[in-house]
């Protein structure tokens, strides 16, 4: 349970003959409980990859499957965390988190237990009855993450989840996500354009080319993280100072810069 597979996936926007090719022959396998980040220049189609796993869009060719099942429509087995949070502003924090459980027809008692533990997991207990607009951006994204986690999904799809947050909040959320991944490991597909974020969070980082997006390179961060024992540090800045981290980051930067350099103006 919880693997993601891209098999020869193409995506064309518009009519098949004259449309814009956004993705070209994407092949990627994400193992159960593995955290994979996709980085790439803007407009390379990385978000489209995630949206196809979520079932919001269909591939033009090829196959996408999750836990061995072909993706045909959105569903709570593939929880999405959106860049713009996408909370329901007329529902309280608790009601936002509870909706997915109600849709699963769980009895009220069971729902309550799960919502409480999700609130606790994301440090939201004191805000359970607040409305989203009463919360800061970081808090709102915590709600969105809680709403995703509470579903107990096979895979977690995060589309630049910290892109709309200020720098400090962003760092807190990144550390939080690492903590979460240890407490409650998940299969995660994480889209970002922030290289350091990708290296800090992911087990593997896939680098994409500019449009039409192809996977250019996949870096194994986990083996380096384990070899260099990054996890002995609590704080992101300490990890970011390590030579092994800097080396990886620079490698990805150069790879992305090549993509930007080849862009015709």
């Amino acid at each position, binding site marked *: 349970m919880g693997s993601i597979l891209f098999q020869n996936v193409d995506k064309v926007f518009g009519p098949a003959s004259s449309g814009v090719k956004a993705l070209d022959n994407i092949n990627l396998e994400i193992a159960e409980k593995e955290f994979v980040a996709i980085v790439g220049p803007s407009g390379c189609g990385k978000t489209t990859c995630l949206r196809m796993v979520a079932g919001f869009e269909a591939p033009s060719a090829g196959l996408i499957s999750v836990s061995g099942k072909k993706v045909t*429509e959105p*569903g*709570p087995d593939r929880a*999405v965390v959106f860049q713009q949070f996408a909370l329901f502003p007329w529902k309280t924090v608790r009601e936002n988190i509870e909706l997915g459980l109600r849709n699963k027809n769980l009895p009220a008692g069971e729902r309550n237990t799960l919502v409480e533990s999700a609130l606790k997991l994301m440090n939201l207990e004191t805000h359970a009855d607040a409305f989203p607009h*009463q919360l800061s951006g970081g808090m709102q994204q915590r709600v969105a993450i809680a709403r995703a986690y509470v579903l107990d999904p096979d895979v977690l799809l995060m589309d630049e989840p910290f892109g709309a947050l200020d720098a400090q909040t962003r760092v807190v959320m990144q550390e939080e996500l690492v903590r979460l991944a240890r407490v409650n490991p998940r299969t995660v597909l994480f889209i970002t354009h922030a290289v350091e974020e990708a290296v800090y969070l992911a087990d593997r980082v896939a680098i994409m080319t500019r449009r039409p997006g192809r996977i250019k390179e996949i870096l194994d961060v986990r083996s380096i993280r384990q070899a260099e024992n990054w996890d002995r540090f609590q704080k992101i800045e300490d990890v970011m100072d390590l030579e092994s981290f800097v080396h990886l980051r620079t490698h990805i930067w150069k790879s992305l810069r090549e993509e930007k350099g080849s862009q015709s103006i």
Partner: protein
Amino acid sequence: MIGRRGWIGLGTVAALIALWFLLTTVTGIVSGARFPSPAEFWLSLRQIWGRGYAGGQLISHALHSLKLVAMGFAVAIATGIPLGLWMGWNRKAEAAINPVFLVIRPIPPLAWIPLAILWLGLGDSAKILVIWFSAFVPSVINTFAGVRNIDRPMIEAARMLGTPRWRMVREVIAPAASPLIFTGLRLSLQASWTTLVAAELVGALVGVGFVLNMAQQDLYPGMILVGMVTVGLLGWATTVLLGMVERRALSWNMAARD
């Protein structure tokens, strides 16, 4: 209770009444045959309030008009909001219905009055039908626009959460569209009063529009003004009521705007 803005508003009303008194009574620049003086207005008001005019007291005329507006408005929103939601949500429904709408929409609601009277006579049902015609359109159009303006991620989030269709409409689509739905309702309410008074002017046996019509035939400016003020107050009161409902329903949105 009354804030600073309220006092300024009351001041304007008081100034207008003073001006009215000045023009009609003190200076006599405007003659009583064209526009009634405050005294004549007061006498007319006392007449229709007590003895009655045009077959009834003011209260019964006003309540009758209010009842028709309430019924026509209720029917209009009960049909208009669901149709707007459906058209916004379902592209096929929109493709099927929109062309019909584009043709019917430019017909002024008042142009339906002759047909409605021909079909249903001078009774209540003809008026309710006409109010429905006029109030229906703004409800549908604004509800439709409200649904179309919903942020896509919000709907995607609901789909991702496995929200079943009916709950999607009730708990996601309708609340997300509700700010524009209420805009439509305000326009619908306005249209309801406009058409009702017009319909009563053309053919009725009771109601504020009928009072206006009779007063015109009797060359009775004081009573005409009483009828007009009554319509104004009724329209104002129902708008305030709708505003209270709106503020309550959209409390999450109002707070977000501050």
